[in-house]
Protein backbone atom coordinates (compact mmCIF):
# COMPACT_ATOMS: atom_id res chain seq x y z
CA UNK A 1 0.00 0.00 0.00
CA UNK A 2 1.29 3.42 -0.94
CA UNK A 3 2.38 4.97 2.36
CA UNK A 4 1.38 8.43 1.17
CA UNK A 5 -2.19 7.27 0.52
CA UNK A 6 -2.27 5.57 3.91
CA UNK A 7 -1.11 8.74 5.62
CA UNK A 8 -3.69 10.84 3.80
CA UNK A 9 -6.40 8.36 4.70
CA UNK A 10 -5.52 8.36 8.36
CA UNK A 11 -5.22 12.13 8.51
CA UNK A 12 -8.62 12.52 6.87
CA UNK A 13 -10.17 9.87 9.04
CA UNK A 14 -8.94 11.59 12.16
CA UNK A 15 -10.51 14.89 11.17
CA UNK A 16 -14.00 15.89 12.26
CA UNK A 17 -16.19 14.83 15.12
CA UNK A 18 -17.85 12.02 13.18
CA UNK A 19 -14.67 10.55 11.80
CA UNK A 20 -12.65 7.49 12.58
CA UNK A 21 -9.46 8.67 14.17
CA UNK A 22 -5.85 7.63 14.12
CA UNK A 23 -4.89 6.05 17.40
CA UNK A 24 -1.75 5.97 19.46
CA UNK A 25 -1.88 2.24 20.08
CA UNK A 26 0.77 -0.04 18.74
CA UNK A 27 -0.83 -2.09 15.97
CA UNK A 28 -0.55 -5.82 16.36
CA UNK A 29 0.30 -5.92 20.05
CA UNK A 30 0.37 -9.27 21.92
CA UNK A 31 -2.77 -10.31 23.79
CA UNK A 32 -1.82 -8.30 26.87
CA UNK A 33 -1.78 -5.15 24.75
CA UNK A 34 -5.17 -6.00 23.24
CA UNK A 35 -6.62 -6.66 26.69
CA UNK A 36 -5.22 -3.36 27.94
CA UNK A 37 -6.76 -1.49 25.01
CA UNK A 38 -10.10 -3.24 25.54
CA UNK A 39 -10.13 -2.44 29.25
CA UNK A 40 -9.22 1.15 28.52
CA UNK A 41 -12.14 1.38 26.13
CA UNK A 42 -14.51 -0.16 28.67
CA UNK A 43 -13.30 2.36 31.25
CA UNK A 44 -14.49 5.21 29.03
CA UNK A 45 -18.06 3.85 29.07
CA UNK A 46 -20.79 4.21 31.66
CA UNK A 47 -22.55 1.12 33.06
CA UNK A 48 -25.33 1.25 30.50
CA UNK A 49 -22.89 1.44 27.59
CA UNK A 50 -20.72 -1.33 29.04
CA UNK A 51 -23.83 -3.48 29.22
CA UNK A 52 -24.30 -2.99 25.50
CA UNK A 53 -20.72 -3.89 24.63
CA UNK A 54 -20.00 -6.99 26.71
CA UNK A 55 -21.88 -10.22 26.05
CA UNK A 56 -21.49 -13.59 27.67
CA UNK A 57 -18.83 -15.61 25.88
CA UNK A 58 -21.42 -18.38 25.41
CA UNK A 59 -23.90 -16.07 23.70
CA UNK A 60 -24.21 -17.97 20.40
CA UNK A 61 -26.77 -15.54 18.97
CA UNK A 62 -24.37 -12.62 19.34
CA UNK A 63 -21.41 -14.70 18.12
CA UNK A 64 -23.26 -15.27 14.85
CA UNK A 65 -24.75 -11.78 14.58
CA UNK A 66 -22.65 -10.46 11.69
CA UNK A 67 -23.42 -9.79 8.06
CA UNK A 68 -22.45 -8.05 4.85
CA UNK A 69 -25.67 -6.05 4.96
CA UNK A 70 -26.08 -2.45 6.16
CA UNK A 71 -27.03 -2.09 9.81
CA UNK A 72 -30.50 -0.79 9.00
CA UNK A 73 -31.30 -4.11 7.35
CA UNK A 74 -29.28 -6.46 9.54
CA UNK A 75 -29.47 -5.25 13.11
CA UNK A 76 -26.20 -5.52 15.03
CA UNK A 77 -25.79 -5.27 18.77
CA UNK A 78 -22.92 -3.74 20.63
CA UNK A 79 -21.80 -0.14 20.78
CA UNK A 80 -22.57 1.92 17.69
CA UNK A 81 -19.62 4.09 16.71
CA UNK A 82 -21.93 7.01 16.01
CA UNK A 83 -23.13 6.93 19.62
CA UNK A 84 -19.66 7.32 21.08
CA UNK A 85 -17.95 10.51 22.12
CA UNK A 86 -14.68 11.35 20.42
CA UNK A 87 -12.51 9.94 23.27
CA UNK A 88 -14.65 6.80 23.41
CA UNK A 89 -14.40 6.39 19.66
CA UNK A 90 -10.62 6.80 19.80
CA UNK A 91 -10.48 4.17 22.54
CA UNK A 92 -12.65 1.82 20.47
CA UNK A 93 -10.36 2.23 17.48
CA UNK A 94 -7.36 1.61 19.70
CA UNK A 95 -8.81 -1.85 20.39
CA UNK A 96 -8.84 -2.54 16.67
CA UNK A 97 -5.39 -1.09 16.17
CA UNK A 98 -4.04 -3.31 18.93
CA UNK A 99 -5.82 -6.40 17.57
CA UNK A 100 -4.86 -6.05 13.93
CA UNK A 101 -1.69 -5.73 11.92
CA UNK A 102 -0.92 -2.25 10.56
CA UNK A 103 -2.06 -3.32 7.09
CA UNK A 104 -5.12 -5.06 8.54
CA UNK A 105 -6.10 -1.95 10.47
CA UNK A 106 -5.60 0.16 7.38
CA UNK A 107 -7.75 -2.21 5.31
CA UNK A 108 -10.53 -1.95 7.88
CA UNK A 109 -10.35 1.86 7.86
CA UNK A 110 -10.47 1.85 4.06
CA UNK A 111 -13.55 -0.40 4.02
CA UNK A 112 -15.29 1.88 6.50
CA UNK A 113 -14.28 4.94 4.52
CA UNK A 114 -15.70 3.34 1.36
CA UNK A 115 -19.04 3.15 3.14
CA UNK A 116 -18.70 6.82 4.02
CA UNK A 117 -18.12 7.53 0.31
CA UNK A 118 -21.26 5.50 -0.42
CA UNK A 119 -23.23 7.51 2.14
CA UNK A 120 -22.11 10.79 0.65
CA UNK A 121 -22.82 9.68 -2.91
CA UNK A 122 -26.26 8.31 -2.11
CA UNK A 123 -27.30 10.61 0.70
CA UNK A 124 -28.44 7.61 2.73
CA UNK A 125 -28.01 7.60 6.49
CA UNK A 126 -27.97 3.78 6.57
CA UNK A 127 -24.35 3.90 5.43
CA UNK A 128 -21.23 5.63 6.73
CA UNK A 129 -18.64 5.64 9.51
CA UNK A 130 -21.18 5.90 12.29
CA UNK A 131 -22.90 2.63 11.34
CA UNK A 132 -20.29 0.23 12.71
CA UNK A 133 -20.59 -1.68 15.98
CA UNK A 134 -18.04 -2.95 18.48
CA UNK A 135 -18.78 -5.72 20.97
CA UNK A 136 -16.95 -8.23 23.14
CA UNK A 137 -17.99 -11.76 24.00
CA UNK A 138 -16.52 -12.52 27.40
CA UNK A 139 -14.32 -10.25 29.45
CA UNK A 140 -10.97 -9.20 27.98
CA UNK A 141 -8.46 -11.70 29.32
CA UNK A 142 -4.91 -12.85 28.71
CA UNK A 143 -5.82 -16.40 29.67
CA UNK A 144 -9.54 -17.07 29.18
CA UNK A 145 -11.15 -17.14 25.72
CA UNK A 146 -12.95 -14.00 24.59
CA UNK A 147 -13.90 -12.38 21.35
CA UNK A 148 -13.89 -8.98 19.65
CA UNK A 149 -16.54 -8.24 17.03
CA UNK A 150 -16.43 -5.16 14.84
CA UNK A 151 -18.75 -4.82 11.92
CA UNK A 152 -21.24 -3.03 9.77
CA UNK A 153 -21.86 -2.82 6.04
CA UNK A 154 -19.26 -4.94 4.21
CA UNK A 155 -17.36 -5.75 7.36
CA UNK A 156 -17.73 -8.51 9.92
CA UNK A 157 -14.57 -8.99 11.94
CA UNK A 158 -14.69 -11.82 14.46
CA UNK A 159 -11.43 -12.06 16.39
CA UNK A 160 -11.37 -14.88 18.93
CA UNK A 161 -8.54 -14.83 21.45
CA UNK A 162 -7.40 -17.64 23.75
CA UNK A 163 -4.18 -16.70 25.45
CA UNK A 164 -1.73 -15.81 22.70
CA UNK A 165 -3.75 -17.77 20.15
CA UNK A 166 -6.00 -15.76 17.89
CA UNK A 167 -8.14 -16.40 14.85
CA UNK A 168 -10.00 -14.14 12.48
CA UNK A 169 -12.26 -16.93 11.23
CA UNK A 170 -14.97 -16.43 10.26
CA UNK A 171 -14.77 -12.87 8.99
CA UNK A 172 -16.24 -10.93 6.12
CA UNK A 173 -14.58 -8.11 4.24
CA UNK A 174 -16.02 -6.24 1.30
CA UNK A 175 -16.14 -2.85 -0.26
CA UNK A 176 -18.49 -0.58 -2.14
CA UNK A 177 -17.09 1.33 -3.84
CA UNK A 178 -14.10 -0.98 -4.09
CA UNK A 179 -12.16 1.87 -5.66
CA UNK A 180 -12.47 5.53 -4.76
CA UNK A 181 -10.58 8.77 -4.71
CA UNK A 182 -9.39 10.43 -1.55
CA UNK A 183 -7.68 13.77 -1.84
CA UNK A 184 -6.77 12.96 -5.43
CA UNK A 185 -5.37 9.55 -4.52
CA UNK A 186 -6.88 6.22 -5.52
CA UNK A 187 -7.87 3.90 -2.65
CA UNK A 188 -8.64 0.19 -3.19
CA UNK A 189 -9.39 -1.55 0.10
CA UNK A 190 -9.23 -4.97 -1.57
CA UNK A 191 -6.69 -4.05 -4.22
CA UNK A 192 -4.06 -6.51 -3.00
CA UNK A 193 -6.51 -9.39 -3.14
CA UNK A 194 -7.48 -8.54 -6.71
CA UNK A 195 -3.96 -8.03 -8.06
CA UNK A 196 -2.49 -11.12 -6.42
CA UNK A 197 -5.36 -13.30 -7.65
CA UNK A 198 -4.90 -12.17 -11.25
CA UNK A 199 -1.14 -12.66 -10.92
CA UNK A 200 -1.67 -16.22 -9.73
CA UNK A 201 -4.16 -16.92 -12.52
CA UNK A 202 -1.81 -15.57 -15.16
CA UNK A 203 0.99 -17.78 -13.82
CA UNK A 204 -1.01 -20.94 -14.52
CA UNK A 205 -0.19 -22.97 -17.60
CA UNK A 206 -2.95 -24.11 -19.93
CA UNK A 207 -3.55 -27.39 -18.15
CA UNK A 208 -3.62 -25.78 -14.70
CA UNK A 209 -5.89 -23.00 -15.90
CA UNK A 210 -8.30 -25.49 -17.42
CA UNK A 211 -8.61 -27.13 -14.02
CA UNK A 212 -8.88 -23.85 -12.14
CA UNK A 213 -11.62 -22.21 -14.19
CA UNK A 214 -15.14 -23.30 -13.28
CA UNK A 215 -17.54 -23.48 -16.20
CA UNK A 216 -20.42 -21.69 -14.53
CA UNK A 217 -21.35 -18.33 -13.05
CA UNK A 218 -20.70 -17.58 -9.39
CA UNK A 219 -23.12 -14.86 -8.42
CA UNK A 220 -22.39 -14.79 -4.71
CA UNK A 221 -20.39 -16.24 -1.84
CA UNK A 222 -21.24 -19.86 -1.14
CA UNK A 223 -20.13 -19.81 2.49
CA UNK A 224 -20.80 -16.18 3.35
CA UNK A 225 -22.38 -14.80 6.52
CA UNK A 226 -24.97 -17.17 7.98
CA UNK A 227 -23.35 -20.31 6.57
CA UNK A 228 -21.50 -21.43 9.68
CA UNK A 229 -20.70 -25.12 9.86
CA UNK A 230 -21.03 -25.82 6.16
CA UNK A 231 -18.15 -27.10 4.06
CA UNK A 232 -18.31 -27.69 0.34
CA UNK A 233 -16.48 -30.09 -1.89
CA UNK A 234 -13.33 -28.32 -3.13
CA UNK A 235 -12.95 -27.58 -6.84
CA UNK A 236 -10.44 -26.01 -9.18
CA UNK A 237 -6.73 -26.66 -9.49
CA UNK A 238 -5.10 -28.50 -6.62
CA UNK A 239 -1.97 -27.29 -4.90
CA UNK A 240 -0.28 -30.58 -5.66
CA UNK A 241 -0.01 -29.64 -9.33
CA UNK A 242 1.22 -26.09 -8.70
CA UNK A 243 4.89 -25.16 -8.85
CA UNK A 244 6.68 -24.03 -5.72
CA UNK A 245 6.47 -20.43 -6.92
CA UNK A 246 2.73 -20.72 -7.61
CA UNK A 247 2.20 -22.21 -4.15
CA UNK A 248 3.95 -19.22 -2.63
CA UNK A 249 1.75 -16.93 -4.72
CA UNK A 250 -1.32 -18.76 -3.42
CA UNK A 251 -0.14 -18.34 0.17
CA UNK A 252 0.69 -14.70 -0.48
CA UNK A 253 -2.84 -14.20 -1.79
CA UNK A 254 -4.33 -15.91 1.28
CA UNK A 255 -2.11 -13.60 3.34
CA UNK A 256 -4.37 -10.70 2.36
CA UNK A 257 -6.90 -12.23 4.77
CA UNK A 258 -4.68 -13.96 7.33
CA UNK A 259 -2.49 -10.85 7.47
CA UNK A 260 -5.32 -8.76 8.86
CA UNK A 261 -4.24 -10.10 12.24
CA UNK A 262 -0.93 -9.51 14.00
CA UNK A 263 2.14 -10.71 12.11
CA UNK A 264 3.06 -13.57 14.44
CA UNK A 265 -0.48 -14.96 14.35
CA UNK A 266 -0.67 -14.53 10.59
CA UNK A 267 2.64 -16.33 10.12
CA UNK A 268 1.48 -19.25 12.25
CA UNK A 269 -1.67 -19.51 10.13
CA UNK A 270 0.27 -19.39 6.86
CA UNK A 271 2.71 -22.01 8.20
CA UNK A 272 -0.30 -24.20 8.96
CA UNK A 273 -1.63 -23.66 5.44
CA UNK A 274 1.81 -24.35 3.95
CA UNK A 275 1.82 -27.82 5.53
CA UNK A 276 -1.30 -28.76 3.60
CA UNK A 277 -0.67 -26.70 0.48
CA UNK A 278 -0.78 -29.80 -1.72
CA UNK A 279 -4.37 -30.29 -0.53
CA UNK A 280 -5.35 -26.66 -1.10
CA UNK A 281 -7.41 -25.71 -4.16
CA UNK A 282 -7.71 -22.57 -6.24
CA UNK A 283 -10.86 -22.01 -8.32
CA UNK A 284 -11.87 -19.21 -10.64
CA UNK A 285 -15.13 -18.17 -12.29
CA UNK A 286 -15.56 -15.31 -14.71
CA UNK A 287 -13.41 -13.34 -17.12
CA UNK A 288 -9.65 -13.74 -17.00
CA UNK A 289 -8.65 -10.28 -18.24
CA UNK A 290 -6.73 -8.45 -15.53
CA UNK A 291 -8.95 -6.15 -13.51
CA UNK A 292 -12.24 -7.67 -14.65
CA UNK A 293 -14.94 -8.85 -12.25
CA UNK A 294 -14.21 -12.47 -11.42
CA UNK A 295 -14.91 -14.82 -8.54
CA UNK A 296 -12.19 -16.92 -6.93
CA UNK A 297 -11.93 -19.37 -4.06
CA UNK A 298 -9.09 -20.82 -2.01
CA UNK A 299 -9.99 -23.96 -0.13
CA UNK A 300 -7.78 -26.19 1.98
CA UNK A 301 -8.12 -28.32 5.07
CA UNK A 302 -7.92 -25.30 7.38
CA UNK A 303 -9.02 -22.42 5.18
CA UNK A 304 -11.82 -21.28 2.92
CA UNK A 305 -11.56 -17.90 1.21
CA UNK A 306 -14.04 -16.58 -1.34
CA UNK A 307 -13.95 -13.34 -3.31
CA UNK A 308 -17.18 -12.50 -5.15
CA UNK A 309 -17.82 -9.35 -7.20
CA UNK A 310 -21.48 -8.37 -6.98
CA UNK A 311 -23.33 -8.00 -10.27
CA UNK A 312 -26.15 -5.75 -9.18
CA UNK A 313 -26.70 -3.64 -12.25
CA UNK A 314 -23.55 -1.60 -11.83
CA UNK A 315 -19.84 -2.23 -12.36
CA UNK A 316 -19.14 -5.45 -10.45
CA UNK A 317 -15.48 -4.51 -9.97
CA UNK A 318 -16.67 -1.69 -7.70
CA UNK A 319 -18.64 -3.91 -5.33
CA UNK A 320 -16.97 -6.93 -3.77
CA UNK A 321 -17.82 -9.40 -0.99
CA UNK A 322 -15.28 -11.78 0.55
CA UNK A 323 -15.32 -14.40 3.28
CA UNK A 324 -12.56 -15.99 5.32
CA UNK A 325 -13.22 -19.20 7.23
CA UNK A 326 -11.37 -22.02 8.94
CA UNK A 327 -13.52 -25.17 8.76
CA UNK A 328 -11.57 -26.63 11.68
CA UNK A 329 -11.51 -23.58 13.91
CA UNK A 330 -14.18 -20.97 13.16
CA UNK A 331 -14.63 -18.82 16.27
CA UNK A 332 -11.58 -20.61 17.75
CA UNK A 333 -13.76 -23.52 18.81
CA UNK A 334 -10.90 -25.97 19.08
CA UNK A 335 -9.43 -23.82 21.83
CA UNK A 336 -12.50 -23.65 24.02
CA UNK A 337 -15.31 -25.99 23.00
CA UNK A 338 -15.44 -29.22 24.94
Amino acid sequence: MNKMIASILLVLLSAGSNSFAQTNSTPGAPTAGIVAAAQKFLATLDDSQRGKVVFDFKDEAQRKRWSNLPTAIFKRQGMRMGDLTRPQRDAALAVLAASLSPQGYEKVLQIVEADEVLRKSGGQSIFGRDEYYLSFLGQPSTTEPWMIQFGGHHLGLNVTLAGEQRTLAPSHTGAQPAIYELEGKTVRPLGGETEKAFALLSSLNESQRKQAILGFQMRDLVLGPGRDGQTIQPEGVKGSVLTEKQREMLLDLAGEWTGILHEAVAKAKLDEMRKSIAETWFAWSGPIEKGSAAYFRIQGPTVIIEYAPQRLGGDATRHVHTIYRDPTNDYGIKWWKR
Partner: protein
Amino acid sequence: MVEAVSRTLSLILALLAFPSAAFGHRDDQYLQATLVVIEPSEIRLQINLTPGVAVAEQVLARIDRDRDGAISKHEAAAYAELLKRDLTARLDGRKLELKLAASELVSPAELRTGAGTIQMEFTAISGPLAAGAHRLTLENRHLTTMSVYLINAAQPRFATVQITRQKRNANQSACEIDFTYHPLRPKIAGSAGQRPSYR
Protein backbone atom coordinates in the same frame (compact mmCIF):
# COMPACT_ATOMS: atom_id res chain seq x y z
CA MET B 1 -45.49 -2.69 17.90
CA VAL B 2 -46.71 0.32 15.92
CA GLU B 3 -43.24 1.80 16.14
CA ALA B 4 -41.67 -1.43 14.87
CA VAL B 5 -44.07 -1.62 11.92
CA SER B 6 -43.47 2.03 11.14
CA ARG B 7 -39.71 1.54 11.28
CA THR B 8 -39.92 -1.45 8.96
CA LEU B 9 -42.08 0.45 6.49
CA SER B 10 -39.70 3.40 6.57
CA LEU B 11 -36.79 1.10 5.94
CA ILE B 12 -38.52 -0.61 3.02
CA LEU B 13 -39.37 2.75 1.48
CA ALA B 14 -35.78 3.91 1.94
CA LEU B 15 -34.47 0.72 0.34
CA LEU B 16 -36.86 0.89 -2.59
CA ALA B 17 -35.94 4.52 -3.17
CA PHE B 18 -32.26 3.73 -3.33
CA PRO B 19 -30.86 2.95 -6.81
CA SER B 20 -30.28 -0.80 -7.12
CA ALA B 21 -26.94 -0.40 -8.84
CA ALA B 22 -25.58 1.49 -5.88
CA PHE B 23 -27.14 -0.57 -3.15
CA GLY B 24 -25.17 -3.09 -1.13
CA HIS B 25 -27.06 -6.32 -1.75
CA ARG B 26 -29.00 -8.03 -4.49
CA ASP B 27 -32.44 -6.45 -4.37
CA ASP B 28 -34.07 -7.63 -7.59
CA GLN B 29 -33.11 -11.29 -7.49
CA TYR B 30 -34.13 -14.37 -5.57
CA LEU B 31 -30.98 -16.15 -4.39
CA GLN B 32 -31.48 -19.91 -4.12
CA ALA B 33 -28.43 -21.61 -2.63
CA THR B 34 -28.49 -25.39 -2.38
CA LEU B 35 -26.06 -27.58 -0.50
CA VAL B 36 -26.28 -31.22 -1.56
CA VAL B 37 -25.38 -33.60 1.23
CA ILE B 38 -24.71 -37.16 0.08
CA GLU B 39 -24.67 -39.86 2.71
CA PRO B 40 -24.79 -43.64 2.41
CA SER B 41 -28.43 -43.80 3.43
CA GLU B 42 -29.90 -40.53 2.23
CA ILE B 43 -29.54 -37.44 0.08
CA ARG B 44 -30.25 -34.09 1.71
CA LEU B 45 -30.91 -30.82 -0.10
CA GLN B 46 -30.37 -27.86 2.22
CA ILE B 47 -31.81 -24.83 0.45
CA ASN B 48 -31.47 -21.21 1.54
CA LEU B 49 -33.82 -18.85 -0.27
CA THR B 50 -33.24 -15.13 0.03
CA PRO B 51 -35.51 -12.78 -1.92
CA GLY B 52 -34.15 -9.30 -2.57
CA VAL B 53 -36.24 -6.39 -1.43
CA ALA B 54 -37.61 -5.67 -4.91
CA VAL B 55 -38.87 -9.22 -5.44
CA ALA B 56 -39.88 -10.01 -1.87
CA GLU B 57 -43.55 -9.17 -2.53
CA GLN B 58 -43.67 -11.54 -5.49
CA VAL B 59 -42.23 -14.33 -3.36
CA LEU B 60 -44.50 -13.49 -0.44
CA ALA B 61 -47.52 -13.65 -2.73
CA ARG B 62 -46.72 -17.32 -3.21
CA ILE B 63 -46.36 -17.95 0.54
CA ASP B 64 -48.86 -15.74 2.40
CA ARG B 65 -51.76 -16.88 0.25
CA ASP B 66 -54.51 -15.40 2.43
CA ARG B 67 -52.64 -12.08 2.63
CA ASP B 68 -53.12 -11.78 6.37
CA GLY B 69 -49.51 -10.67 6.93
CA ALA B 70 -48.53 -13.87 8.70
CA ILE B 71 -47.24 -17.20 7.46
CA SER B 72 -49.20 -20.07 8.90
CA LYS B 73 -47.91 -23.63 9.18
CA HIS B 74 -50.28 -24.60 6.39
CA GLU B 75 -48.94 -21.82 4.15
CA ALA B 76 -45.34 -22.78 4.95
CA ALA B 77 -46.07 -26.39 4.07
CA ALA B 78 -47.83 -25.35 0.86
CA TYR B 79 -44.83 -23.25 -0.19
CA ALA B 80 -42.48 -26.14 0.55
CA GLU B 81 -44.67 -28.31 -1.68
CA LEU B 82 -44.53 -25.64 -4.41
CA LEU B 83 -40.75 -25.57 -4.21
CA LYS B 84 -40.56 -29.36 -4.14
CA ARG B 85 -42.55 -29.58 -7.36
CA ASP B 86 -39.92 -27.39 -9.02
CA LEU B 87 -37.08 -29.65 -7.95
CA THR B 88 -36.10 -32.83 -9.75
CA ALA B 89 -33.48 -35.09 -8.23
CA ARG B 90 -32.36 -38.34 -9.82
CA LEU B 91 -29.92 -40.94 -8.59
CA ASP B 92 -28.43 -43.04 -11.39
CA GLY B 93 -31.35 -41.96 -13.56
CA ARG B 94 -34.00 -42.94 -11.01
CA LYS B 95 -36.21 -40.09 -9.84
CA LEU B 96 -35.96 -39.57 -6.10
CA GLU B 97 -38.97 -38.88 -3.93
CA LEU B 98 -38.17 -35.77 -1.93
CA LYS B 99 -39.64 -35.27 1.51
CA LEU B 100 -39.61 -32.08 3.50
CA ALA B 101 -37.44 -32.71 6.56
CA ALA B 102 -37.22 -29.23 8.05
CA SER B 103 -38.16 -25.69 7.24
CA GLU B 104 -37.99 -22.25 8.70
CA LEU B 105 -39.79 -19.29 7.26
CA VAL B 106 -38.98 -15.86 8.59
CA SER B 107 -41.67 -13.25 9.06
CA PRO B 108 -43.06 -11.32 6.09
CA ALA B 109 -41.61 -8.14 7.60
CA GLU B 110 -38.12 -9.63 7.63
CA LEU B 111 -38.51 -10.99 4.11
CA ARG B 112 -39.49 -7.55 2.88
CA THR B 113 -36.17 -6.10 4.10
CA GLY B 114 -34.29 -8.34 1.68
CA ALA B 115 -32.30 -9.81 4.56
CA GLY B 116 -34.62 -12.67 5.47
CA THR B 117 -33.68 -16.19 4.44
CA ILE B 118 -36.11 -19.08 4.11
CA GLN B 119 -34.49 -22.39 4.95
CA MET B 120 -35.79 -25.70 3.62
CA GLU B 121 -34.35 -29.16 3.83
CA PHE B 122 -35.56 -32.02 1.67
CA THR B 123 -34.40 -35.59 2.01
CA ALA B 124 -34.57 -38.63 -0.19
CA ILE B 125 -33.68 -42.20 0.58
CA SER B 126 -30.61 -43.09 -1.45
CA GLY B 127 -29.78 -46.55 -0.16
CA PRO B 128 -29.04 -49.29 -0.25
CA LEU B 129 -26.26 -48.01 -2.44
CA ALA B 130 -24.22 -50.47 -4.41
CA ALA B 131 -20.49 -50.08 -4.07
CA GLY B 132 -18.95 -48.08 -6.87
CA ALA B 133 -19.77 -45.07 -9.00
CA HIS B 134 -23.05 -43.16 -8.89
CA ARG B 135 -24.48 -39.99 -10.39
CA LEU B 136 -26.88 -37.60 -8.71
CA THR B 137 -28.58 -34.97 -10.85
CA LEU B 138 -30.56 -32.03 -9.56
CA GLU B 139 -32.60 -29.44 -11.38
CA ASN B 140 -34.18 -26.38 -9.78
CA ARG B 141 -36.92 -24.67 -11.82
CA HIS B 142 -38.32 -22.54 -9.02
CA LEU B 143 -39.13 -18.96 -10.06
CA THR B 144 -36.56 -18.97 -12.81
CA THR B 145 -37.16 -15.47 -14.13
CA MET B 146 -36.16 -13.73 -10.92
CA SER B 147 -33.65 -16.20 -9.48
CA VAL B 148 -29.93 -16.72 -9.27
CA TYR B 149 -28.69 -20.10 -8.14
CA LEU B 150 -25.81 -21.75 -6.33
CA ILE B 151 -25.50 -25.53 -6.10
CA ASN B 152 -22.66 -27.25 -4.31
CA ALA B 153 -21.97 -30.71 -3.02
CA ALA B 154 -21.15 -30.69 0.66
CA GLN B 155 -17.86 -32.24 1.61
CA PRO B 156 -18.98 -35.73 2.72
CA ARG B 157 -19.04 -36.46 6.42
CA PHE B 158 -18.11 -40.07 5.84
CA ALA B 159 -15.04 -41.45 4.11
CA THR B 160 -17.30 -44.04 2.50
CA VAL B 161 -18.61 -41.38 0.12
CA GLN B 162 -16.22 -39.59 -2.23
CA ILE B 163 -17.29 -36.83 -4.61
CA THR B 164 -15.46 -37.31 -7.88
CA ARG B 165 -16.92 -34.63 -10.13
CA GLN B 166 -19.41 -31.77 -10.13
CA LYS B 167 -20.82 -30.31 -13.34
CA ARG B 168 -23.32 -27.41 -13.45
CA ASN B 169 -25.08 -25.55 -16.21
CA ALA B 170 -24.09 -21.91 -16.68
CA ASN B 171 -26.47 -20.42 -14.10
CA GLN B 172 -26.19 -23.32 -11.64
CA SER B 173 -29.87 -24.18 -11.78
CA ALA B 174 -28.89 -27.76 -12.61
CA CYS B 175 -25.99 -30.00 -11.70
CA GLU B 176 -24.59 -33.48 -11.97
CA ILE B 177 -22.64 -34.84 -9.03
CA ASP B 178 -20.62 -37.99 -9.55
CA PHE B 179 -19.58 -39.87 -6.46
CA THR B 180 -18.29 -43.26 -5.43
CA TYR B 181 -19.44 -45.32 -2.50
CA HIS B 182 -16.87 -47.41 -0.64
CA PRO B 183 -18.84 -49.36 1.99
CA LEU B 184 -15.75 -51.09 3.36
CA ARG B 185 -13.96 -47.89 4.27
CA PRO B 186 -14.12 -46.88 7.93
CA LYS B 187 -16.74 -44.21 8.49
CA ILE B 188 -14.70 -41.30 9.73
CA ALA B 189 -16.94 -38.46 10.74
CA GLY B 190 -15.93 -35.02 9.57
CA SER B 191 -17.21 -31.54 10.26
CA ALA B 192 -18.77 -30.87 6.90
CA GLY B 193 -22.30 -31.20 5.68
CA GLN B 194 -23.74 -31.06 9.14
CA ARG B 195 -27.38 -30.30 9.67
CA PRO B 196 -28.01 -26.57 9.77
CA SER B 197 -29.43 -25.14 12.94
CA TYR B 198 -32.88 -23.90 12.07
CA ARG B 199 -33.67 -21.04 14.34
